[in-house]
């Protein structure tokens, strides 16, 4: 069973992400949740996680800082990080891909795009 960590300061956004992944046919997964980058790093230290889906604009530690911390850690570098953000345009996407994000999705999530990422980039369905 794959374990997915969803990082967003909004409980509503976390629920929307879970629902979108579910509708896209993701089976046999369990979800962990964090409200910002700091909380996410604590979970990553203590728990086995297979994928991270993170927002960018968050208090305490934002998603870009979290991505950098994950990708600079020899222990976590392999972890695919999907960024889900309302701040997506071509410049933001290029920067995040350069920082080794596995994919960048815009809010509000569009199901065909989510499905494509789950199938082609993450091999989850």
């Amino acid at each position, binding site marked *: 069973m794959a374990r997915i960590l969803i990082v967003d*300061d*909004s*409980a*509503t*956004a976390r*629920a*929307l992400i879970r*629902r979108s992944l579910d509708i896209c046919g993701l089976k046999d997964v369990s979800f962990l949740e964090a409200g910002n980058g700091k909380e996410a790093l604590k979970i990553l230290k203590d728990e086995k996680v297979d994928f991270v889906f993170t927002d960018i*604009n*968050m*208090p305490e530690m934002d998603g870009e800082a979290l991505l950098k911390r994950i990708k600079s850690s020899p222990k976590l570098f392999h972890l695919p990080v999907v960024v889900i*953000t*309302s*701040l*997506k*345009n*071509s*410049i*933001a996407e290029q920067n995040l891909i350069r920082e080794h994000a596995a994919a960048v999705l*815009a*809010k*509000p*999530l*569009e199901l065909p795009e989510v499905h494509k990422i789950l199938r082609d980039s993450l091999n989850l369905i």
Partner: protein
Amino acid sequence: MNEEKLIVALHGAITESTENLIFQELEEVRILEKEEAVRIGDYQVSLKIKEPFSGTLYLIFDHTHAEQIVTEMIGEVIDDEKSIIDGLNELCNTIGGRFLAKYVPDESFELGLPECGKIESLSELPYDSVQRFYFQDTQLCVSLEQE
């Protein structure tokens, strides 16, 4: 600042976000004086725009429509204050991001974090008029103030 481009980007962001999050199509937009559109006790979410210009995006909802919108977003009845505020903040964040992504598709932009409160005084509001967006079953008011 290209005013027409700003309005097209903002309307596009609101239309797409509401279609996707609350499954409602835009029917009409009217410009109303604040005294006509806004009441004490309404929810107001403010979102600072830091780049490519300085300003604030305001979204205003009365209690009934706020509850209705967040319930549609989540897919279950939401009536507690904390969840309503969280849902409205997320909607504002999504609209704000989508708006700037449309306005400057090839430039960097930066937003603050959404802050939701209740309107306590009409005279202290930083705008004189709002745009009211009418959807099939709900509505919201918007004001964009540039500094």
